[in-house]
C-alpha cells in the first residue's frame, strides 16, 4: 500500500500569529496584520465583514436625488434597502477599500452613518483563538492564511458547524479511532481528548505516537480540544480520540496492519473509525476487517483519494464505508479529489488548518498548519458522525451514514444536479444533520395538472 500524503504546506503559521497566542512562544518573524478582511472601525482588527459592501444611512431630510448623487460620486450603487431603518446596503467598486469608502460616506454632510456590513456567527462559536481561520467550520469570507496573496473564501462555503453545534457539540460517550500514523499524544490541543496511548501496529506496542504528521492532523480536525481558548476547534467538541498507528514514519502501511488496526479499534469500543488512507487495490483482508467493524456498529469514514482518479480503498467498499471527497473554500470540488460512484459526500479538504506534531516545525513554533487532501476532508465527516452517534445512540451505523448523505448540500448542483461522482450527495451540512428540520404545512396544487 502506498499512502499518498496530502500536501502539507508548511506555513510558518506559528510565526505569523505567535503574537496573539499564549502557547510555545517561538521566534517571531515578520508578522503581517492579523485582520481577516481589514481593520474594522471599533471592535478591533479581526471583525469580519462582507467584502465590497457597506451600510449607509442618510439623514431623514436628505432627498432621493441627493442620495443617488452621493452614491454615484462614490462610485457605488445600492443593492439593498432596509426600509424600516432607511439603511442602504451599498456595493462599492471592486478596487475600493471598505474602510476608506465607509469613511468617505461618513464624511458626507447628508450621511448619518456608514459602516462595514459585519458578518455574524451563530452563538455556538467556540473560543479557540485559531477558530477564525477555520473556514471549513465557519466560512465568513476570511482570507485562507495570513500571508499577502492568500485566497479568500466564499461566505457560508462551510459545513455549518456553528449552527450544528447550537443543537449539539456531541459528548464524550463516543470515541473516534484515528487509523493513521498515530497521534501526537502530547499535543496541547489533543492531549485531553486522547483516550489512551493507543495501539501501534507498526512497532507492535501500545504507544501510538505519531512520527509522521498525518494522524495528528486528522485527529485535530475531527476532535481537537474545543472551546479551550487556544488552538483550533474540532468538529466533535467532546468526542474521544483513539490513536491507532498503522502507517510508518513515511506514511506507508500494509493491508494487514490497517486491518488489524480497524479490528482493534472496533473491539476497543470506538464507534467511529476514520481511515484517511488509501490502497490502489481491493484487499479481501481489508474488506473483511471493514465488514467486521461495520457489523459491530462502527461508522467507517474514508478519504476518496488525492490523484484525481478512481476512488481508492477502503473508501470504495461502498456498502460499509462513507467515501469522502474534498471541496475547497469556495464550495467547489477540489481538483485533485478522486471521483466515482462510491463517493458519498464531500467536505473541505483544501487549506484546512489543523494540528501537527509539536516537533514538526521545530524551533518552538506553534503546532498548527494548513493541510490539503481528502485525508483532511474525511475527519470532518467523522466528527459529524460522532456527534450524531452521541446525540442518537440508538441509530445504527447505516442510519447515521444515510443522515450524513441526505443532509448534504448539492454544492455543485448547477453543473451536476443530484448525486454525482465528484461529491456524491454533496458537501456535508451539520445544521441539516443535527438541528430539527422544520416540518411545515404541505400545500398541494389544486386544479388541472399539466
Amino acid at each position, binding site marked *: 500500500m502506498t499512502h499518498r500524503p496530502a500536501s502539507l504546506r508548511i506555513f510558518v503559521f506559528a510565526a505569523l500569529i505567535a503574537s496573539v497566542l499564549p502557547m510555545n512562544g517561538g521566534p517571531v518573524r515578520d508578522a503581517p496584520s492579523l485582520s481577516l478582511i481589514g481593520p474594522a472601525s471599533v471592535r478591533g482588527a479581526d471583525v469580519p465583514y462582507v467584502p465590497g459592501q457597506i451600510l449607509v444611512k442618510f439623514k431623514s431630510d436628505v432627498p432621493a436625488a441627493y442620495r443617488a448623487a452621493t452614491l454615484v460620486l462614490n462610485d457605488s450603487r445600492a443593492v439593498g434597502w432596509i426600509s424600516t431603518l432607511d439603511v442602504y446596503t451599498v456595493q462599492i467598486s471592486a478596487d475600493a477599500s471598505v474602510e476608506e469608502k465607509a469613511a468617505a460616506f461618513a464624511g458626507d454632510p447628508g450621511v448619518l452613518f456608514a459602516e462595514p456590513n459585519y458578518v455574524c456567527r451563530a452563538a455556538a462559536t467556540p473560543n479557540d483563538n485559531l477558530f477564525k481561520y477555520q473556514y471549513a467550520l465557519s466560512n465568513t469570507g476570511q482570507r485562507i492564511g495570513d500571508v499577502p496573496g492568500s485566497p479568500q473564501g466564499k461566505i457560508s462555503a462551510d459545513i455549518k458547524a456553528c449552527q450544528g453545534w447550537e*443543537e449539539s457539540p456531541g459528548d464524550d460517550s463516543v470515541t473516534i479511532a484515528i487509523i493513521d500514523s498515530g497521534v501526537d499524544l502530547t499535543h496541547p490541543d489533543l492531549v485531553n481528548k486522547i483516550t489512551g496511548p493507543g495501539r501501534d501496529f507498526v512497532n507492535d506496542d501500545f504507544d501510538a505516537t505519531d512520527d509522521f504528521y498525518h494522524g495528528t492532523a486528522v485527529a485535530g480536525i475531527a476532535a481537537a480540544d474545543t472551546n479551550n481558548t487556544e488552538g483550533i476547534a474540532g468538529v466533535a467538541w467532546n468526542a474521544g480520540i483513539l490513536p491507532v498507528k498503522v502507517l510508518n514514519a513515511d506514511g506507508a502501511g500494509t493491508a494487514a496492519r490497517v486491518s488489524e488496526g480497524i479490528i482493534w479499534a472496533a473491539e476497543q469500543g470506538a464507534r467511529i473509525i476514520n481511515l484517511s488512507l488509501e490502497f490502489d487495490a481491493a484487499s479481501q483482508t481489508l474488506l473483511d476487517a471493514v465488514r467486521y467493524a461495520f457489523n459491530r456498529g462502527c461508522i467507517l469514514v474514508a478519504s476518496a483519494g488525492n490523484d484525481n482518479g478512481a476512488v481508492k480503498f477502503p473508501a470504495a467498499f461502498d456498502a460499509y464505508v462513507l467515501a469522502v471527497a474534498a471541496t475547497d473554500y469556495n464550495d467547489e470540488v477540489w481538483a485533485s479529489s478522486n471521483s466515482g460512484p462510491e463517493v458519498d459526500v464531500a467536505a473541505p479538504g483544501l487549506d484546512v488548518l489543523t494540528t501537527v506534531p509539536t516537533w514538526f516545525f521545530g524551533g518552538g513554533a506553534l503546532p498548527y498548519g494548513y493541510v490539503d487532501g481528502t485525508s483532511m476532508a474525511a475527519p470532518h465527516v467523522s466528527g459529524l458522525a460522532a456527534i450524531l452517534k452521541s446525540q*442518537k445512540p*440508538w*441509530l445504527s451505523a447505516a*442510519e447515521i451514514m*444515510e*443522515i450524513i*448523505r*441526505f*443532509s*448534504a448540500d*448539492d454544492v455543485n448542483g448547477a453543473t451536476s444536479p443530484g*448525486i454525482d461522482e465528484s461529491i456524491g*450527495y*454533496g458537501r456535508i451540512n451539520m445544521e*441539516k444533520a*443535527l*438541528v*430539527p*428540520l*422544520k*416540518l*411545515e*404545512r*404541505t400545500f398541494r396544487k389544486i386544479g388541472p395538472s399539466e
Partner: protein
Amino acid sequence: MSAHSRLIAVFFLGAGILLGPFAAPARETERSFRIQAGVGAEVFSRSIVWDERTGSSILKVGLGMIRVGLELPGGASFALLAGYGGNNWNGLVFRELPFSIDYEAGSLGAILLGTDIDVPLFKPGKWEIGASGRFLFSFGSSGEWTLTGLQQIGAFDGRANGLMIQAGPTLTYRGFETFSPFATLFYDGLSATFTMNENIDPLVGTEKKKIKGQGAVGASVGILFEPSPAFRLKAEGFLVPYTKLEGGLKFNVGASLRTIYLF
C-alpha cells in the same frame, strides 16, 4: 402542587355530585328534569411541556361543540359534549426520529367527546357556591406532510390524542334578574400523546411524545345571561398561569361562548 389541586378539585366535584340535590333548593321546584341542548365555541391556549420538561411550546386550540344533557331539580346539570376542534401544535420538537423534526405545520383536526357537570351546592343570600367539571377527550385526525430540502424527500404522518380535565369551585352572584356574573377556580389538567412517523427511505422512525399541560390551576370569570327560562347564554374568559422553563410567570388565556336551550 398539581396533585394537591387535583385533590381539591375532585373533592369539590364529588361533594357537589353527592350533596347538590340536597344542599341547593331548587329554583324551579315545580319542574323536574329539564333537557338541555346547545352549542358552544371556545378558543384557548395552553403551555405544554414534554420530554421530562426539557421542551415546551404553546398549544392553541379552537373548538366548536354541541351539548345535550339534563338539568336536575335544584340546578345541577350533566351534559354530553361532542364537537370538532383544531389543535395547533407548532413548536413541538421530535428529537428521537432519525432526522429531528420541529413541527410547524399548524393545526390538526380532532373529534371531541366529553362531559360537563355543574352542581350548585350552597346559596347564601344572593350568592351561589357550586362545583363544576369538564372531561374532554380529543381524538386527533391524521396529518400528512412532505419534507423537502434534503437529498431525499421525506414523508411524515402524525396524530395527537389527548384528555383535558377542568374541575373546581364556582361562585355565582344571583342578584340580577336576567344575568349572573360568576367566577371559577379550577384544576386544569391536559395530557396528550403525539405520534409522529418519519419515512425518508430507507430511514424510518416513530416517536410517541407524551405531552402535559403546564400550570395546574386556572381561574375564569364570566356572565350567564338568562333572558328567558328556556334560553341561556354563557360567556367566560379563562386565565391559566404557568412558569416558563427558563423562569418567569406567564399566562395562558382563553374564552368560550355557549348557548343553552332548556326544554
